[in-house]
Structure formats: C-alpha cells, structure tokens
C-alpha cells in the first residue's frame, strides 16, 4: 500500500542528545579516522574549538534515534522490510563539540509515488544549547511496493 501523502509535514517531538567525548572518539574510530580534532585531547584543547569536536557525519548518531520512531510509527505504517536508504544529504553550520546538548526536530518533507516504489524524505534540523543551528540532515528512503 502506498505511503499516504497526507503525512507530508508530520513532525515528531524534539529529541535531546548530550554529546559524550568518548562516544565521539568511538564513532571516529568506527570510520577509521585519524583526525586529531576528534581523537587527540591535547591537540583538540589547543585548536580553535578548545575541545574534541565530532566528525561531521556524527550527525547520524543522533539522527538514528530520530529515525527509529518514524520506522515504528503506526499511523505512517512504513513497510520497513521493503525499505532502503536511497539518498543522504547533510549541511553543517556549527561544529558539534563534546559536552554539547543538541535539540533535533524531524519532519516529513516529501512523499512521492512512483510506479514500483514510494520515496519518503525526512528532514532533521538540529540546534545546540546556544540555539545555534548545528546541522540539517535529509534522509531519503525508498519503499518498494
């Protein structure tokens, strides 16, 4: 069954995520990064950021916590067994630092019906504890029919 277009604009409650320094390092190691901005405390403390910062794609870590409730949403009723991640887009405005508290909001920005599949686009906007824009992520999922 096609994903109903009436869900364009649907939002979910703001999610709060506190950025832990060791979590940042764990993520950097998972993507096999050697970048001292993410991994070296001494280097990071002397950098312009004064502390460990997260790799840009760390956005997926708090993003995953926002995407999961969408997959489980009974009203939207996505067929997750037939769902694949089609496209991804990120814009980065302010670096994520260890100790930051992030506030993210999720919204469905597009639902398209094609012959054999539906395309669902989800936007995640994130701000930090200083109300600065941190990042925008657009996750595009393809659901085969």
């Amino acid at each position: 069954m096609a994903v109903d277009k009436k869900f364009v604009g649907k939002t979910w409650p703001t999610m709060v995520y506190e950025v832990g320094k060791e979590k940042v390092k764990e993520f950097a190691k998972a993507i096999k990064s050697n970048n001292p901005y993410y991994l070296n405390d001494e280097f990071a403390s002397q950098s312009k950021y004064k502390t460990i910062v997260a790799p840009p794609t760390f956005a997926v870590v708090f993003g995953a916590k926002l995407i999961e409730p969408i997959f489980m949403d009974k009203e939207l009723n996505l067929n997750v067994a037939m769902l694949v991640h089609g496209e991804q887009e990120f814009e980065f405005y302010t670096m994520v630092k260890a100790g930051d508290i992030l506030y993210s909001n999720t919204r469905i920005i597009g639902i398209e019906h094609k012959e054999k599949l539906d395309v669902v686009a989800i936007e995640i906007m994130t701000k930090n504890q200083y109300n600065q824009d941190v990042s925008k992520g657009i996750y595009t999922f393809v659901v085969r029919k």
Partner: protein
Amino acid sequence: MKAMYEKNSIDAGDTFNAQQKIDKYRAIYYAGASGDFNPIHIDAEFGKMVGLGGAILQGLCTLGFTADAVTTWIGDPGRLKKIKCRFSLPVKIGDTITIEGLVTEVHEDTGTVVIKVINQNGGDVLTNVQAEVVTK
C-alpha cells in the same frame, strides 16, 4: 602540530584520494558507534536469506569514510559545509573502496568537490556525491 593538518587554500583542479578495505568486523564497529544494528549489516546468514549474499556495510558508514577523506584532506573538519550522495551499490565485507575527490569549482570562499566512490570492480557504490568546503 597544527600546521601538519591544515590545508591553507583550495583551488579548482585540486584532488585527493583515500582507500578503505572493509575488514570483517567493520559493520559491527559501525553498528556499535552509530546505533544501526539492522541485521542485514551484522548477520551474514540474515543477509544471505534476504538475497544480499551476506552482510553488507551500512551505507552511512561509506558516506562516513567519504566525509572523513574530505576532512583528512582539508584538516579542520569545520570547513566541510555540505555533503550528499545516492547509495547505489551495496558494499560487502572484504570489498576495497576507493574515494577520489576533485575540486570542480571555487566561488568566493566555497569550493565544490565532486567525489567518486568505487569498489574494487570499478562499480560506483555511491553516486551523485558532492561536497562543499570552505576554501581558506
């Protein structure tokens, strides 16, 4: 120490490249770090059952490698302003992916980087990969 990691200016025509061999446990490390424990990534038997021929790497891990190739090249990760891609082919455990970036255009302080991400057979695992970086 800092100077080692900073690229001062970026011009059209600049290139960079990186390579990643997908070790047996990579998808498991990435699952732990990212929270993406979908069984198609961490359970080879499940991957076979759904016709993928085994476990496949998380697409966002491939994008993570790609973004990291960019930030390793430019030094300060705050200079990466945008990145996007389409997930085209699954990356399998044991694959080797090659990431090749080319600065196609510089406008004021922003450089557009077009990136090719291919597997060992020359297949594009990501397509439409583009990044924007601060050039100075």
